[in-house]
């Protein structure tokens, strides 16, 4: 008996070591694996963990553009077509892993450029790696100013294309005022980087509309109990609820508002209401709640018809709204590589800087702080679907006051 156990253990351990050894042996093999007609692009994405929803949409967007290019014969670089090998790794929403993987993608897998992961927590450490290793890096899903200001010396190899926080605050506050004549705003923001950044901007935007902010509530991201805030906001007579938080917190907040009898006219919780599960979790309670749109079929950008034709049946508008910016970021990177006519990092980087044209997310042109502003819109959840309501889209009526909570 002992003998059998022992043999089994020896076999187990030796197979484990064999696996390791095989892995170590594979290092040079993978870096040399890029054949003459292939270029490698790396992306370390938050496919699981708290940001997993965003990461999954990013994977859809990046892969779609790579498939498009490869199906058309490959990416043209100096009159030769190269197949793109998109190497995706899962950083499980951890910054340390995201940074290490970005390094490995470049140094081990020979990626000539990187596409970024969602949110500054993931993206900024990756942009730092790109800066240190001199590799072009294009990302999205990072609000412009948070990304632009993350490196006080100014980015060199890292580029971000997304909306500007100030625009976000203004558009959200404008729509709130279209919807409600009550000028009292309650703000709910979590203490993640973007929440801290956005809160004063929401406050300023509300004030510039002549609204008064009757309550500002901040809380750590995992918070899911809001009774004290809701009671306070209700007592202050707020009819406009603007917030930014994770989906779990947002779902909890809306449920508890209903339970405690707080029925505001307008509820828009950015970041929280972006996933299909928003409707699944809240059901008809979510009717009329606002959602941010970083892409919308109503916008009619270049390729909108094609996107709708390819994906319209498979993916919902809210998924597309989150995946198309990633699709666009990949477009911008590949366009620049073709323009540069080489995979030389400095030349590709220079070509990215010169980007000036129409892509899936609208017109893209990078400013001095290495960010390109893409449009920001507000949509509204009605019957499990999202429709653009601000700027107003033809044939769509805003549902106000929010029916779900009445």
């Amino acid at each position: 008996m002992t003998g059998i156990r022992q043999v089994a253990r020896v076999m187990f351990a030796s197979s484990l070591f064999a696996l390791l050894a095989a892995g170590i042996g594979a290092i040079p093999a993978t870096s040399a694996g890029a054949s003459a007609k292939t270029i490698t692009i790396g992306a370390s994405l938050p496919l699981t963990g708290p940001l997993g929803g965003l990461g999954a949409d990013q994977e859809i967007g990046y892969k779609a553009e790579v498939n498009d290019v490869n199906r058309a014969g490959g990416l043209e670089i100096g009159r030769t077509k190269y197949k793109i090998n998109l190497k995706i790794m899962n950083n499980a929403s951890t910054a340390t892993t995201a940074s290490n993987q970005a390094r490995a993608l470049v140094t081990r897998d020979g990626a000539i450029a990187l596409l970024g992961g969602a949110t500054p927590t993931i993206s900024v450490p990756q942009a730092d790696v790109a800066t240190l290793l001199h590799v072009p890096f294009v990302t999205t899903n990072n609000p412009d100013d948070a990304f632009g200001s993350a490196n006080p010396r100014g980015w060199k190899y890292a580029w971000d294309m997304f909306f500007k926080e100030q625009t976000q605050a203004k558009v959200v506050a404008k729509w709130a005022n279209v919807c409600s004549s009550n000028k009292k705003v309650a703000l709910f923001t979590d203490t993640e980087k973007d929440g801290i950044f956005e809160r004063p901007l929401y406050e300023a935007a509300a004030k510039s509309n002549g609204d008064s902010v009757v309550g500002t509530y901040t809380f750590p991201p995992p918070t899911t109990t809001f009774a004290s805030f809701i009671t306070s906001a209700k007592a202050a007579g707020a009819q406009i609820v603007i917030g930014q938080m994770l989906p779990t917190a947002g779902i909890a907040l809306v449920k508890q508002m209903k339970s405690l009898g707080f029925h505001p006219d307008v509820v828009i919780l950015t970041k929280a209401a972006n996933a299909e599960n928003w409707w699944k979790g809240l059901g008809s309670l979510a009717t009329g709640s606002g959602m941010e749109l970083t892409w919308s079929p109503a916008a009619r950008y270049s390729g909108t018809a094609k996107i709708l034709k390819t994906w319209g049946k498979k993916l919902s508008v809210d998924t597309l709204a989150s995946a198309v910016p990633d699709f666009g970021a990949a477009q911008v990177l590949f366009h620049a590589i073709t323009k540069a006519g080489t995979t030389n990092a400095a030349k590709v980087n220079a070509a990215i800087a010169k980007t000036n044209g129409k892509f899936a997310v609208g017109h893209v042109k990078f400013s001095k702080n290495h960010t390109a502003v893409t449009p920001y819109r507000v949509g509204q959840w009605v019957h499990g679907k999202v429709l653009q309501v601000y700027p107003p889209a033809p044939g769509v009526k805003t549902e106000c006051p929010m029916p779900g909570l009445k």
Partner: protein
Amino acid sequence: MNATTLVNGVLEGGLYALVALGLSLVFGVLRLINLAHGVLVVGAAYAALELFDLLHLGPFVALPIVIVVAALFGYVLQRVMLTNLLLKGPESGIVGTFALAVLGEAAFAAAFTSNGVSLQSSLATTSVKVGGVTLELVLVVACAIAIACAGGLQFGLKRTRAGSVLRAAAKDPSTAELMGINVRLVFALTVALAAALAAVGGVLYGVSTGFAPTSDTSLLLIAVAVVVVGGVGNVTGTLVAGLAMGLAQAVSVSLFGGGYADFTIYVLFFVVLIARPKGLFGQGAF
């Protein structure tokens, strides 16, 4: 700071206590910090979600099924996995249950995506008024269930034969074995009971708020704090500590703003641990 805030804070504490009871039991009896406890709680919520998707069962209709499944799972888990790990020392138990937590998170993400979800029930959107104070009905129910579970557990441990067997096994496993107690069976039943309690907490948590595959970490941390403050294995202590944590959080949020909610919990946790290592109410049953 008004009455509504404070009372709802205490009620939220009832939910914490409910989530912590199972952890307390396993910690107290098996001397194991079960890092997979949060996964059991979240898993129960996902199980209820699945039952709704498949059979359109409401969360409270699904609850008995979820409890039975969780208990069976806990029993099997202890039999095939945890017993062997515990024999290898506490660090193996921690690594093993951490591995289970990783597996659980991966399974939830694969099956249900990483986005937050929630269990729909009219209970979560209804309130009751008691003397001018508005209370969330789901929290009232959670708190009542927490008190009932704690009371039942306390009674069972102190007044029944099964309870004395359990206490004997916890206090001195070797002697208990010599006295003819099947310690392995007792331990497995303990984990089954803990999993069942986690299931109750999980379904109520899922009804009252949103949850995601990674919600288990914050649930686990709060539960650990509640268990230690109340005294490991002390059922009444766990209940009181849960309620006190909820109240302390509500008070600190009112005074210093929401950013300090976690800070309050963990400072309280640390201070109590240092001042009274056996918890505010002593080590209780074991």
